[in-house]
């Protein structure tokens, strides 16, 4: 058995690791992720990665302004707009260029770079965030229009140390590779789950006059089609969302071929009847 998640073949746990495991309440929500997730608490793994990145930026942050640095002669914003909005629960007051879209406001002004720019024209879904709880594209949302609105980004989904169930499920099912579309996928999925709870229909809903309850995998595929993943993690994204939606686990669709099977087909010779 080659299964890292299997209790019998997993690594021995030290007392510290056992303690670490107990600190990960989210993981019990997503079944076997509990074990394969070892060492990947927000404080653990993320701390490590954040530290690595921080170090790279620190050197730059210390940089002073060069005496010869060139600045614009007329740097002032034209058409400034003042906006007060909530982002991940915190009130933000911004004076910004009327042309600034929410995506750029998040990335360039609020240091919330988790929201990604993929196409900047509504054709990929990477910039998906929640505005007043609904999934929208931040690249086509003028920041100026958001007075009094509540924006939730990928940075606002986890509750402290506890990942949102969709975030945990994405890790469990490996619902990403490069990770660039992932924040948009996850925000989209969180919005989708709420839409499903409201019984909303989709293009593949057979009878739009009837109530919609449980989403089939095909329903999830269609509803997630506004989020392009060029790495092609789609089946795993669907599995992650299905579990977050219904609690249903999706069986693994890969396996190692066993020695006996190999021996059998090798014996088969030229006139193998399986072909």
């Amino acid at each position, binding site marked *: 058995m080659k299964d890292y998640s299997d209790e019998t073949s997993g690594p021995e746990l030290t007392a510290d690791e056992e303690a670490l495991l107990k600190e990960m309440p989210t993981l019990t929500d997503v079944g076997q992720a509990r074990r394969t997730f070892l060492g990947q608490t927000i404080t653990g793994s993320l701390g490590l990665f954040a530290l690595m990145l921080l170090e790279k930026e620190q050197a730059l942050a210390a940089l002073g302004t060069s005496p010869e640095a060139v600045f614009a002669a007329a740097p002032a914003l*034209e*058409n400034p*707009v003042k906006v007060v909005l909530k982002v991940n629960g915190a009130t933000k007051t911004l004076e910004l260029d*009327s*042309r600034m*879209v929410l995506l750029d406001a998040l990335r360039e002004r609020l240091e919330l770079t988790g929201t990604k720019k993929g196409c*900047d*024209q*509504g054709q990929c*879904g990477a910039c*998906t965030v929640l505005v007043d709880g*609904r*999934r*929208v*594209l931040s*690249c*086509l*949302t*003028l920041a*100026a*229009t958001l*007075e009094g609105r509540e924006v939730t980004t990928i940075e606002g989904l986890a509750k402290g140390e506890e990942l949102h169930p969709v975030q945990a499920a994405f890790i469990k099912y490996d619902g990403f590779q490069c990770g660039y579309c992932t924040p948009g996928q996850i925000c*989209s999925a969180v*919005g*989708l789950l709420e*839409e499903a709870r*409201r*019984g*909303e*229909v*989709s*293009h593949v*809903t057979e009878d*739009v*006059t009837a109530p919609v309850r449980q989403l089939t995998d095909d329903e999830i*595929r*269609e*509803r997630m*089609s*506004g*989020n*392009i993943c060029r790495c092609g993690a789609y089946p795993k994204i669907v599995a992650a969302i299905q579990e977050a939606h219904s609690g249903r686990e999706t069986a693994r669709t890969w396996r190692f071929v066993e020695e006996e099977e190999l021996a059998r087909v090798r014996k088969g010779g030229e006139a193998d009847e399986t072909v």
Partner: protein
Amino acid sequence: MRPFKYVRAINADEAARAVASNPQAKFLAGGTNILDLMKEDVERPNELVDLTRLKLAEIKTAPGGGLTIGALAKNTDTANHPLIRKNYPLLTQAIVAGASGQLRNMATNGGNLMQRTRCQYFYDTAMPCNKREPGSGCGALEGLNRIHAIFGWSEKCVATYPGDMANALYALEAVVRVRNAEGRERTIPIGEFHRLPGDTPERDNNLQHGELITAIELPKSPFAKHSYYLKVRDRASYAFALVAVAAALELDGGRVKQARIVLGGVAHKPWRSPEAEAALSGRPASEESFRRAAEAALKDAKPLAHNAYKVELGKRAVVRALMRASRLA
């Protein structure tokens, strides 16, 4: 994107006045198309009047059994409104066939009618396009025109209207209610809302500058039981139609009492086929009748160099949509 003044409108009259008084001002609702085009420098307003605070999002029954849909109701809310799902499922299907969940959460019904063509030449400011820059020529006429019109095009423009919702609205004989800066209201039947390109392809529709869409009115529909929206595209979702068909039938036993056939993705406006509808009237609801109707619907198509397939695809799509509408398939 050019610099623009941002104005947050408080009520419809103020919004209409703001736009009417500035020839370069535009309304902003969901923003899903205009912002994209502004980034491409195709749309160049110097003032945007934000409509999103206006109270025009209500969906309510109208006297006479129809339905009034607020212009600022989101596409998602419209598609999922219980009365629309029950009485106008064709509209629900058409809306959810378009764009993505996120875009439908942003897009408004009024804005949906205002979306502009997805012609590649229109989008690229380095290319000729009479719609974007009158007099510069039509790049698609003798260029790449696989996704372009087979009906109603002119030498000046072969672009298509890209939307789905309007195709269903046409089949349902909706009426668009608009209001101008003086507070005067008028209604435009949906079939007369969008235009054919003719010599003025820069004008997509028959709205006057400063006129604001306030509502879409749907008459009571006899089609709830037998309608279907079919969309054929290059991938399974999140793509514009190669051909779309909004089909609606009122059946009397096994016979067609009345029919509505509107094709999308084939013309500068939703393309209704009175010929096909007439061919169905009084006929049995059968594949054979549907084939005859499909032939009638596509009879006068004039394909371009790369889109002759739309004629055959259009026929087959009409048959399939009618088969689904009549529940024969």
